[in-house]
């Protein structure tokens, strides 16, 4: 059986917001190390991989590995019924077809219970190759969200170019073009700075991506104030958000050719 208690339902709510646009149904794979989810979007261009580590839960117990197949729209509805600061306990029996949610209010004696019907989802896991990326950009997630939102008003795709100069996001549209350059923040020696942009570069990269997906990825801004973009030429982009309980990784295939 599974029993997992999160100190705040908000984490799960935000997580769902971050993936539900991309994926309609998915398996939450539970085992003793935690809960993971991997799914491709309907167009098979992007992949999202989520991990919630057992250590991130207030209480966590999973006797044997089990997949929990869930319709994300239904799950979102159930999660909406929780307040952000409620504690949230997930329970599932070994061969049940229900996932139980218990929300306990922080300051009152309110206890709410919901049940979500599980479904059989047939999906294998795609092997994600270990990759040494040529460029790694660490930046405030809000800044990334703003850039992709702004550029998505202009065009369909964005060219991301990382060079010694910094990282440039450029989009060309029918009526207007735009480009945003972020330079690496100069840190006081040994110091840390909030809102810093850090660029680690082995070699120059220049890749084009669909903005629609990046805007979707940026929904994870609520999970983490920092985002990392990892890129190599001709390899899927990895957009990574790390948060206290785990991470959410998005992979996106670059656009090929001219269009």
């Amino acid at each position, binding site marked *: 059986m599974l029993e997992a208690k999160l100190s705040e339902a908000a984490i799960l709510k935000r997580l769902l917001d971050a993936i539900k646009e991309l994926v309609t149904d998915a398996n939450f794979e539970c085992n003793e190390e935690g809960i993971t989810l991997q799914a491709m979007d*309907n167009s098979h261009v992007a992949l999202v991989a989520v991990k919630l580590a057992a250590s991130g839960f207030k209480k966590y117990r999973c006797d044997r590995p089990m997949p929990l197949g869930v319709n994300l729209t239904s799950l979102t509805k159930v999660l909406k019924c929780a307040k952000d600061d409620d504690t949230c306990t997930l329970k599932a029996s070994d061969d049940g077809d229900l996932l139980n949610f218990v929300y306990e209010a922080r300051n009152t004696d309110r206890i709410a219970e919901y049940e979500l019907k599980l479904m059989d*989802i047939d999906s*294998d896991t*795609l*092997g*994600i190759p*270990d990759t040494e990326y040529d460029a790694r950009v660490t930046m405030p997630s809000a800044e990334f969200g703003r850039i992709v939102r702004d550029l998505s008003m202009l065009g369909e795709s964005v060219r991301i170019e990382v060079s010694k100069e910094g990282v440039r996001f450029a989009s060309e549209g029918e009526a207007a073009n735009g480009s945003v350059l972020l330079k690496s923040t100069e840190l006081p020696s040994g110091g840390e700075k909030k809102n810093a942009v850090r660029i680690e570069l082995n070699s120059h990269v220049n890749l084009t991506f669909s903005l629609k997906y990046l805007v979707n990825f940026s929904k994870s801004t609520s999970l983490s104030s920092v985002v990392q973009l990892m890129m190599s030429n001709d*390899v*899927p982009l990895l957009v990574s958000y790390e948060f206290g309980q785990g991470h959410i990784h998005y992979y996106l295939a670059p656009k090929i050719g001219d269009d």
Partner: protein
Amino acid sequence: MCGRFALGIPYNQIAELHGYNVQVGEWVAQEHFHPRYNVAPRSYAPVIRRDTRAVAAEAASNGHESSEKSDQVIMHTMKWGLVPHWSKHDDGNLNTINARCEALVEGGGMWNSIKGKKRCAIPCQGYYEWLKKGKERLPHFTKRGDGNLMLLAGLYDCVTLEGQTEPLWTFTIVTTDANKDFSWLHDRQPVILPTTDTLNTWLDTSSGSWNCTLTKLVQPYHDEKIPLTCYQVPKEVGKVGNESPTFIEPLSQRRDGIEAMFAKQSGPKPSPSNSQISSAKRKLDDSAVSQPSPSPRKKAHKMNTWGDDSDIEYIDSSLAGSSTKVSRCS
């Protein structure tokens, strides 16, 4: 409802009708058709029909021999969306890109004067159907497992509209209930003529009327010797203006997809993670819905929708004709 199909191969390969024992005589109005992987309603496509002129001429010249000669078939480029011979105008509002087989079998209605005399077959590489999944509609392509052209049963008609001097030739595709292997995709599918025999039976209009053999032909697809395959394809096919040979290739194998990218990445340079990669190749089927596709061997496993969803506007206004909504076909 309705449809979209692919016929992107060169003229000579179309006319060859590989796998069917049929000799196509000539191709009338060939120049009106341009091979495309995205053939939409209200555009032009070739149909196969008996050469009625030959029959008539033959009959006139020597009385009875006509029945043997009438086997002569021709290819004829016509416009998709039947405009009946009694029409004065092509108002574009007719939902006649499909004809429901129930309407043909039961009789009555507008098809009565057409179904006995003007039957044709529409060659295609396969057809597209959109699977509804939540808010999204995912295009799927259905084709013959053996890769031969698929022949869809159709009706045609010819009319000279008011103010026009040239006759307008048009066709419709006959639809039936989806068979059970394909009902997950859509409740309707086109009537498929799998063999030379079924094709000849359908095209034989010598009696000039409907009969019970034809009623059998329009039952849901059941030829076990010729399985169909079906798989998800790129969404771009939804826009009528788009055109690409990749529209008939499985989405999971698309070159610009995440799966192909990962495979390429892990292929050439073996990395430590290799074993993991090969062991776990995923095909994502999330929801039962999208099933795997590329297994030609399986029986029709998914197929679809020739039908209805048609109120979808997969037809894009930018192109071709106005933003016609594809409407339900009746």
